[in-house]
């Protein structure tokens, strides 16, 4: 049998194995003894105890949902709280005939098909003997009617529960998001046990992003119930731990100012503190009331919101992607200086159009008659397209996109909310990857004036404007500055995160871009100089106009003949005070026409509200609206 030198000794081996078998048999006897002892303890020693527990299964474990954390703005204004509201809840295990009960209940309280569907879905999913809400937000009449007749219904309860409420209504909804009824999908991404008894969960925005902080920890109550399931007494209780309160960077007052400045325009404003990435204002217009979603929005209301041509549900500040238009000019100017393609004296002559060498195609300037002699500063101030066609042609797309990447274009900023889009920074590599096409020189020119495939979100524009103001220093934008343990009273600040330390270019180069932008507002020929009326501080800015549809070579864009949907988007980026930047603002007005006439005035109103004492800020946006100039 054995091929080895070592001779097997069958007899000794068998004896060895047999010894081990006997040993294991003894071991088994001991362990089975342990099992029997365990069963003896459970079934004989503690019999009384367990028998009592199982009698009618009198002991029930009830989940005590924690109170959701509150949300405050930076000055302590309440943005989201919880109000008690009455709910009709059913414990289906205690109901004899659920369908009949549901029909009978209709006599006393009305509930919709949607309520019923949500109830059934939740009831199939949850632990047995958990009370599941059928109707939320009962009014006093309904409560009174039900309460009198409750004796007829086993397993039906009226419970007062805390329900999310947004006291500011439609104000700042795109910054906050909202909560809604939990569905099966939501349960997949949380610890289901911690949500026993919880009916709502963050669906969007901050409410979703900070769900784990806001929710808290479920509490447990062991209660004794009678055979009908009514609670007789509480045996033990572990109270729930409420969720953490959020302290936002949002300035609710300033947010309101910005929203009002929009009147009935559609678009977005983002205001940031460039020194730490705090988002002071996050506006997307139009807005909607998040309270609608808390108690289950009706199909009618939802359809209306969804189908509205102004798309109020769309969060333009984070998800809206727009061509940047001329707002890219200071960035490309810097890129040219840094690459030494131009210097600050370099001049070109603008005749109103530009031609690539040996090509017929005319690349037009927005000013038909041309700007004449232009250097970098004046080209930014007057937004000369021809200067930047020439610069782009000489700089080349590779250097352009590499330089703009440093400002975060084409990448998500990583803000602490949901739904952020990345925008698109065009590059040779991008085009090959997505379209499998080579890059054409004409596209470089289009990119140079912020058209073509180039896209950015209002948040990205505000963030990069801040970086421009601080010579490239950039922070991750954030909406929450601190988390607070309500019941402990300790507040934990969230660390700000510096994304870039600057140094993309020399100080003197930054100065050129800053001067050009200062003159946009304060210069004689600045494209946004109409907003400098009555200014007590300085603003540096840049207007932009983003084409929504292309114009044929010889056609002209005529604002009056173009339908509203196809009118250009108006953009304005700015920071102030220009010599000591405190805030950076990006404004985008959809189909607003030119950046100077509609977007810049909104920025001015917000800056006044922030930088000037309240009683001094008299200038309203309508005062500043004038003729059209891109």
């Amino acid at each position, binding site marked *: 049998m*054995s091929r080895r030198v*070592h001779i097997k000794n069958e007899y000794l081996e*068998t004896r060895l*194995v047999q010894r081990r078998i006997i040993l294991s048999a003894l071991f088994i006897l001991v362990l089975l003894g342990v099992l029997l002892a365990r069963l003896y303890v459970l079934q004989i020693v503690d019999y009384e105890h367990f*028998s009592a527990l199982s009698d009618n299964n009198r002991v029930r474990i009830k989940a005590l949902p924690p109170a959701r954390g509150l949300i405050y703005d930076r000055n302590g204004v309440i943005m989201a709280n919880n109000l008690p509201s009455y709910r009709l809840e059913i414990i289906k295990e205690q109901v004899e005939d659920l369908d009949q009960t549901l029909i009978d209940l209709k006599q006393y309280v009305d509930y919709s098909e949607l309520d019923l569907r949500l109830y059934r879905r939740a009831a199939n999913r949850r632990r047995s003997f958990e009370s599941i809400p059928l109707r939320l937000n009962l009014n006093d009449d309904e409560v009174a009617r039900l309460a009198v007749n409750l004796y007829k219904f086993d397993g039906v309860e009226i419970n007062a529960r805390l329900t999310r409420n947004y006291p500011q209504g439609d104000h700042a909804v795109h910054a906050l998001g909202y909560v809604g009824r939990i569905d099966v999908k939501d349960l997949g991404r949380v610890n*289901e046990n911690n949500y026993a008894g919880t009916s709502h969960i963050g669906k969007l925005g901050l409410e979703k992003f900070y769900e784990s902080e806001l929710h808290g920890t479920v509490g447990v109550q062991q209660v004794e119930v009678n055979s009908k399931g009514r609670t007789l007494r509480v045996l033990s209780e572990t109270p729930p731990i409420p969720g953490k309160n959020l302290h936002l960077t949002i300035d609710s007052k300033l947010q309101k100012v910005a929203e009002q400045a929009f009147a009935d325009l559609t678009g977005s404003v983002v205001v940031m503190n460039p020194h730490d990435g705090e988002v002071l204002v996050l506006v997307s217009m139009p807005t909607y009331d998040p309270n609608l979603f808390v108690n289950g929005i009706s199909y009618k209301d939802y359809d209306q919101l969804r189908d509205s041509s102004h798309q109020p549900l769309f969060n333009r500040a984070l998800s809206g992607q727009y061509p940047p238009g001329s707002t890219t000019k200071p960035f490309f100017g810097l890129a040219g200086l840094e690459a030494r393609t131009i210097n600050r004296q370099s001049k070109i002559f603008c005749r109103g159009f530009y031609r690539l060498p040996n090509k017929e195609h005319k690349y037009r300037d927005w000013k038909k008659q041309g700007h004449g002699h232009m250097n970098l500063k004046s080209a930014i101030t007057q937004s000369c397209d021809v200067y930047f066609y020439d610069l782009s042609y000489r700089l080349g797309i590779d250097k352009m996109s590499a330089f703009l990447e440093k400002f975060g274009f084409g990448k998500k900023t990583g803000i602490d909310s949901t739904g952020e889009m990345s925008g698109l920074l065009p590059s040779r590599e991008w085009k090959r990857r997505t379209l499998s096409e080579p890059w054409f020189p004409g596209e470089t020119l289009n990119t140079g004036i912020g058209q073509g495939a180039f896209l950015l979100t209002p948040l990205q524009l505000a963030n990069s404007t801040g970086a421009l103001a601080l010579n490239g220093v950039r922070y991750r934008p954030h909406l929450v500055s601190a988390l607070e343990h309500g019941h402990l009273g300790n507040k934990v600040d969230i660390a700000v995160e510096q994304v870039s330390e600057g140094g993309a270019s020399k100080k003197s180069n930054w100065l050129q871009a800053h001067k050009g932008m200062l003159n946009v507002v304060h210069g004689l020929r600045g494209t946004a100089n109409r907003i400098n009326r009555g200014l007590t501080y300085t603003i540096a800015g840049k207007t932009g106009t983003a084409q929504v549809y292309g114009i044929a070579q010889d056609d002209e864009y005529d604002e009056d003949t173009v339908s509203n949907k196809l009118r250009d988007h108006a953009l304005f980026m700015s920071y102030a005070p220009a010599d000591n930047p405190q805030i950076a603002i990006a404004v985008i007005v959809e189909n607003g026409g030119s950046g100077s006439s509609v977007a810049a005035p909104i920025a001015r109103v917000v800056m006044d509200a922030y930088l000037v004492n309240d009683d001094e800020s008299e200038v309203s946006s309508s005062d500043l609206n004038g003729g059209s100039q891109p």
Partner: protein
Amino acid sequence: MNGMSDTGDYSVTRRVLDALNIDPVLFVLLGVLAAFGIVLLYSGSGSNIDLILRQLTRLSIGLFFCILVANVPSRLLKSFSVWLYLLGVLLLLAVMFFGEVGKGAQRWLDLGVIRFQPSEILKLAVPMMVASYLADRALPIGFKDLFVSVILVLIPVMLIARQPDLGTAILVGSAGAFVLFLAGVRWKIMLSLMFLLSLMAPLLWKYALHDYQRSRILTMFNPESDPLGSGYHIIQSKIAIGSGGVYGKGWLNGTQSQLDFIPERSTDFIFSVFGEEFGFIGCVILILLYLSIIFRGLYIAAKSKDSFGQLVAGAISLTFFVYLFVNIGMVSGMLPVVGVPLPLISYGGTSMVTLLTGFGLIMSIRSTKRLLG
């Protein structure tokens, strides 16, 4: 117990059983247990006849494999071992890449006709492989052979734990460990291996276990800490067993069981149903029945004349005990809930077939003994 086999008094039944190489003692004990199981399952499944029929089908398949394997000479089984082992490991790898995900774990392989868990094969293949490796070496084994054997055990155990299927990993691992123990690995080495393993435990805890597995182990030590989740199962299961008392509430009369308070009451938690309905006396009888089966297996192992037979029969019998101990331990709140069924009683196909095939192996080994001795 085997006194009868030496007398010449053959009845017809005995002759049929002998012709089929079936051990009458094991056959009767397993039959009683299976009948017990069906009766209990009827209660545990809420009087679900369909489920009973499916279980009976599996029982028949298991019985078929049992008799089939019992008639393969153990010499042949030994030479199959390495191929079965390789097949099992290959299938485990296949599961890792192509397997189906069910309830958060990737365990199943869909072969079109049937879906099965390759990890089941390893429950038999690992002890067979290690035993056949060691059988050719002189016992007690040396250091090199020990090292090889440990690797042979660890490869499939790691793969199974990764799926993650902690219960099966424990069963396969202990089957391998039992072969080593029976092969006479010195106590010093056994203890240092265990020590090494306990040193690795914190690492395993951190990296190898999934969140739900960690929570189960934590819950075991303090079920009240998670009364809404896995603790709920244990609390309700303990109430069921404890309220059974000395005599039990009677078949089909367990309130905890029939009112659906016990989770998984037809599969892993079926012992809670048993404890509630048949009480302490029932539990003692059931455990004695299991004990008889295990001791019969060990007896056959001890009487076997070749190392392979001794090691395989012994390891399978001991693994059978692990099933029993872990299952009752977990439903009575002594051990974490790791998903080990109550052998031959819990509803579920693959473990039934594997277990009965295992007993087929033992019977084949017994026949070999008789031919030689």
